């Protein structure tokens, strides 16, 4: 009886390197649960430093996964981040790829 086919290494999905970074993954996951979030809220939830958080959010913005809006509220600067449709799709694809990889890691 032929053995069931398992995914070969060449067929395994690649994980999106932009999302794969832990902090960027955490940020996208947080933003997926809300409509928009302030920089200070993201910092409070992730415990990241201002510099690191800003750098990772910039990478996500450059990849088109996050949109930024800067405005003044009662003369105080406010930076709001929102997940884009592309970001939502990328996160969904990443989760599916993770699950497929986990499945093959168990079978392997």
């Amino acid at each position: 009886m032929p053995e069931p086919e398992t995914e070969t290494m060449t067929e395994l999905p690649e994980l999106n390197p932009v999302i794969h970074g832990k902090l960027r993954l955490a940020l996208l996951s947080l933003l997926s649960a809300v409509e928009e979030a302030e920089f200070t809220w993201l910092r409070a939830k992730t415990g990241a430093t201002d510099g690191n958080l800003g750098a990772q959010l910039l990478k996500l913005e450059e990849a088109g996964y996050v949109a930024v809006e800067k405005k003044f509220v009662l003369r105080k600067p406010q930076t709001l981040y929102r997940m884009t449709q592309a970001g939502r799709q990328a996160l969904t694809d990443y989760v599916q790829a993770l699950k497929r990889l986990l499945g093959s890691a168990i079978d392997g």
Partner: protein
Amino acid sequence: MSVDHEMNDLARQELTARLNLIESMIAEGRQKTESWGWTFVLWGAAYIAAIVFANLGAPVAEWSTWGHHTLAWPITMISTLVLMFGYIGLVGDKGPKQPETTMGRAIFSMWLAMGVSMMIFFVAAGASGRLDEHIYIAVIGAMLGTTNFASSMILKWRAQLFTALVWWTAAVVGCFGSLTQSLIVFLAAIFLAQIVFGVYGMISERKTMARKSGAVHA
């Protein structure tokens, strides 16, 4: 254990950790740390204050929802509104602003719509002289019942469903009961649906906040 097997184990752990991170961050994002139980207690106290001021000087046996001082209700309600938004403005300045969610906007919109509708209706009906105490209690009961019910459905919160039932009962008694009966049921509804429910909400919120505290380091 072979090298391949060890690598596989490590890879699986790493991938599982990533999935767990996604789940925990989504849960963190959905977590609300705002507390609104105090607003129920505040408005319950405001209704009672309005009834007391309206009936100042009159024997208890003659007390009614409106009493003898016609400005008691409008002044108390407007003062409470100012107090509430003043406090929200003060507290809102501290700490990071909670992000907007669709559910949060829906709940806020419902209460805002109810507040605006009540204000328009009572001002217009009161000024036109077409409002009586029975209708007053019935409309308050119906509106608060509706908003609490809708909120309980959205939040899947059975305790708030109870408050809706209490207010609807007050609305029915307002239509059929005497002025004294209506006042008694109105006071009971304020106590149960505002004070008791508000305190219960505050305790639940404190417990939730105490359980989930601190940043999750990614």
